């Protein structure tokens, strides 16, 4: 009997699914080796088919997407129970990613904007909020409940392995899948629980071909303000680059395209918080010893928190912006 494979998308954009299909002909090996039992993005499966399975029936589950709604959490718990190996696949499941930027606001602020204040709403639909339960002539219908805070997969269930990236690079997915097939076919031992697969163990700077001169900077620029030198370190040129606080593994994709690293591979090994690591890195390049001037240089960074935690807000130490009515102010 073939090993069973499941793929699920929780709160995600579908980019991870595309990345899996993007392994080109290798996908045939996957289809050949595994029996795909659940992949809602590609084929029609029902939740009740999974519910009917025995615990541990699924050999491998690649779970992408963050936990945003009650449905996401239900599926996370269901797939955890039914899977032998559960992998947090991609940045959303691993560290929250773009959906977790919602942690800058709360449920009320988000729903108020989307259903009441958004300029794209039609006049008569302003202020119409979705209800979890609605009674219709045909009966009661139910939609999932929206959580106040976006969580990562491992904040909800036990996770065995992680594959970082937004999305994980196809060549990395190939190495992971080949390793999995090798383990299952030849009875090789599994890597230790919690291992980060399909990534390096250094920072993005290690893979970056640009030359670092350790220049100090007086101002941070936005990408549209200057034309960067293609061979010189972007941070040296005053462009925001998350390289020093990001795990290697993508082969320095963004910096090779003349744009600063976004930080999607998450914090490097032994770093507990990507954003504070970036604060530390940037504090070394700011060219000033005067508090007033330092503040002014920092102010030239557009949206520091959103930039430093673009991918890791949900897995950061603080996890969410604190409510204003709390006594933290």
């Amino acid at each position, binding site marked *: 009997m073939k090993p069973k494979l499941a793929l699920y998308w929780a709160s995600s954009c579908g980019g991870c699914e595309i990345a899996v299909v993007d392994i080109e002909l290798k996908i045939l090996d996957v289809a050949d080796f595994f029996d795909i039992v659940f992949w809602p993005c590609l084929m029609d499966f029902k939740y009740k088919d999974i519910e009917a399975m025995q615990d541990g029936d699924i050999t491998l589950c690649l779970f992408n997407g963050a936990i945003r709604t009650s449905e996401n959490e239900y599926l996370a718990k269901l797939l955890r129970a039914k899977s032998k190996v559960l992998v947090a696949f991609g940045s959303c499941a691993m560290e929250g990613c773009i959906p977790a930027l919602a942690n800058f606001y709360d449920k009320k602020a988000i729903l108020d904007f989307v259903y009441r204040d958004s300029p794209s709403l039609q006049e008569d639909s302003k202020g119409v909020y979705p209800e979890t339960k609605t009674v219709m002539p045909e009966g009661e219908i139910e939609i999932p409940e929206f959580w106040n805070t976006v969580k990562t997969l491992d904040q909800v269930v036990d996770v065995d392995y992680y594959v970082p990236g937004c999305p994980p690079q196809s060549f990395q997915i190939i190495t992971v899948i080949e390793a999995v097939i090798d383990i299952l076919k030849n009875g090789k031992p599994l890597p230790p629980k919690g291992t980060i697969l399909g990534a390096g163990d250094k920072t993005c700077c290690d893979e970056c071909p640009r030359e670092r001169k350790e220049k100090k900077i007086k101002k941070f620029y936005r990408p549209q303000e200057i034309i960067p030198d293609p061979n010189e370190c972007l941070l040296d040129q005053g462009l925001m680059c998350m390289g020093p606080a990001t795990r290697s593994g993508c082969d320095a994709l963004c910096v090779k395209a003349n744009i600063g690293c976004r930080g999607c591979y998450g914090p490097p090994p032994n*770093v507990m918080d990507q954003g*504070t690591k970036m604060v*530390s890195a940037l504090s*070394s390049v*700011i060219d000033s010893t005067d508090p007033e001037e330092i503040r002014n240089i*920092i102010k030239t960074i557009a949206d520091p*928190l959103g930039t430093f935690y673009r991918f890791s807000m949900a897995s950061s*130490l*603080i996890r*969410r912006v604190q409510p204003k009515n709390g006594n933290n102010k």
Partner: protein
Amino acid sequence: MEQNKEFNPKIVAFLCNWCTYTGADLAGVSRLKSSPCVRIIRVMCSGRVDPSFVVKAFKQGADGVFIGGCHIGDCHYSEGNYKTLRRVEFMKLFLEEFGIDPRRLRLEWISASEGDKYAAKTLEFEAEIRELGPLHLVEA
């Protein structure tokens, strides 16, 4: 406030080995009254204090974080405290964006001979944190 009488702030202090730690020692030897709410962690240089230490302290229940270093120009390692200065300025903005009052993080330059300054500044900081009240971080 009535409830604040019960509140004993937890203050984590990262003190540099060469200046502020020795200053704190002097405050004790001189029998000066300094804040009893302070939990001191000795570091070799205030530049050793990674911003994640500050956030981790808040996360684990600190109501205030105090960083003590050598005066500018006096750093044992030449320029460690310049780095601290930049980091703390950055961290204050950072904490504010997270919705945490930046006054909960304080940086002071206290030399080895300034036991009185250490005593005064920790008491001042304790009073400020008492006024701000306990920090309750919300995760969900």
